[in-house]
């Protein structure tokens, strides 16, 4: 891990995160470089989602630091975030405008949505919705993708499409951090979160509010 000379996109140092007022992960550290994919693994409830939400800035961290450029992370949660009363193209174009980009064709092609572009998103199948949701990452134009179980309800062909899209993103000096259980076939490192699980003795910040933790 002597790659410090390269510019890290994301650097996490001794991060502890909490869910429901209880620390669940302690002292997680990793760096993410351009072109690198990091796969988060660990049993259910270990805190993969919480970690990703902290990285995305939705949740405050308990301890430690996250060094990341402003507006660098595109976050994709369990939920698709799709408006069923808008067409596929309208959904994508909206997010493109929000992120200040214009091109939605690349994303439509990458996730095989061209034929569906004028369909109402509400009439799509679960897997198709998922593809549309992932296509949003492409139009966001952000360097780091933070993905929470991205392959849920995707069939094998779609998983392959997704892996290709991630690879394209990595080749363009992007990076991805993915919480998943399946093998994507993307060359990347695996971060096993189980050893970082907080026990009753770790993650108790000594000091001021010790009576509450």
């Amino acid at each position, binding site marked *: 891990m002597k790659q410090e000379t390269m510019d890290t996109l994301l650097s996490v140092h001794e991060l502890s995160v909490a869910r*429901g*007022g*209880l620390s669940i992960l302690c002292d997680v550290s990793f760096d993410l470089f351009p072109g690198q994919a990091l796969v988060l693994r660990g049993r259910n409830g270990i805190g993969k989602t919480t970690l990703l939400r902290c990285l995305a800035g939705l949740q405050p961290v308990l301890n430690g630091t996250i060094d990341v450029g402003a507006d660098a992370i595109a976050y994709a949660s369990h939920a698709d975030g799709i408006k069923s009363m808008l067409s596929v193209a309208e959904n994508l174009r909206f997010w493109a405008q929000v992120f200040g980009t214009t091109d939605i064709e690349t994303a439509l092609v990458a996730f095989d949505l061209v034929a569906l572009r004028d369909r109402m998103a509400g009439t799509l199948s679960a897997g198709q919705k998922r593809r549309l949701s992932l296509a949003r990452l492409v139009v966001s134009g952000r360097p780091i993708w933070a993905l929470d179980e991205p392959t849920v309800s995707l069939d094998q062909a779609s998983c392959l499409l997704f892996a290709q899209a991630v690879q394209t993103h990595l080749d363009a000096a992007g990076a991805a951090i993915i919480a998943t259980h399946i093998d994507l076939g993307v060359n990347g490192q695996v971060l096993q979160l189980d050893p970082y699980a*907080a*026990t*009753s003795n770790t993650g108790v910040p000594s000091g*001021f*509010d*010790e*009576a*509450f*933790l």
Partner: protein
Amino acid sequence: MLEQKQKESTKKPMSIWEYANPTKFLRLSARLLPVLWICAATFIVGGLIWGFFFTPDDYRQGSTVKIIYLHVPSALMAINAWFMMLVSSLVWVVRRHHVSALAAKAAAPVGLVMTLIALLTGAIWGQPMWGTWWAWDPRLTSFLVLFLFYVGYIALWQAVDDSDAAADLTSILCLVGSVFAVLSRYAVNFWNQGLHQGASLSLDKEKNVADVFAYPLYMCMAGFILLFLALVFYRTGTEIRLRRIAALIARERRVI
């Protein structure tokens, strides 16, 4: 070296934020509470007995005036409880001391009850004086609005599971609510003057209360302030212990 040491030793005991530490707070309140309870009881009982039995009847209102000894102190505390909640909400938002947020939570029901007492005694007083239980007098109306604010604030605390989130949400509600409560006060004043020219039903009696009535009133007010402090200290302690229990249970459950 010596200078530094001196600085530290003078700095540490001076900070009032020390008492935002829950264990320190509990220790302090354990020492303060007996004193507060006794003083509050003495002042309230003394003030009420003095006021009820050792003051002359008012030449105009007869003995009904004596409800003032409950009405005015509770009204005073109804407003000041909200003010205290505003201050401790601000402390929570700025400095994030849990005790501060819990103190605001603890004060809310006390303030609510004070508001209710003020409204009820106002109605009981208003019946013989004005011949009606309720008038849309600016003061009464503002207290009714204040009552609604208390209900909303407490309901929000109840509705949120995560206690930090609840503290954040209620603090912001308290800040925003305070602004709108002041606006409501002004609006209600304006609105009622619009209805009855020159507000004939004014509660402004304190201004010309004679000394003979005033001293027991001051005593009751002091008693209510002490009672409020005692209740808030007591309830904050309860809230701290509840938080502590919840944290312990949560930790216990994780050890598998």
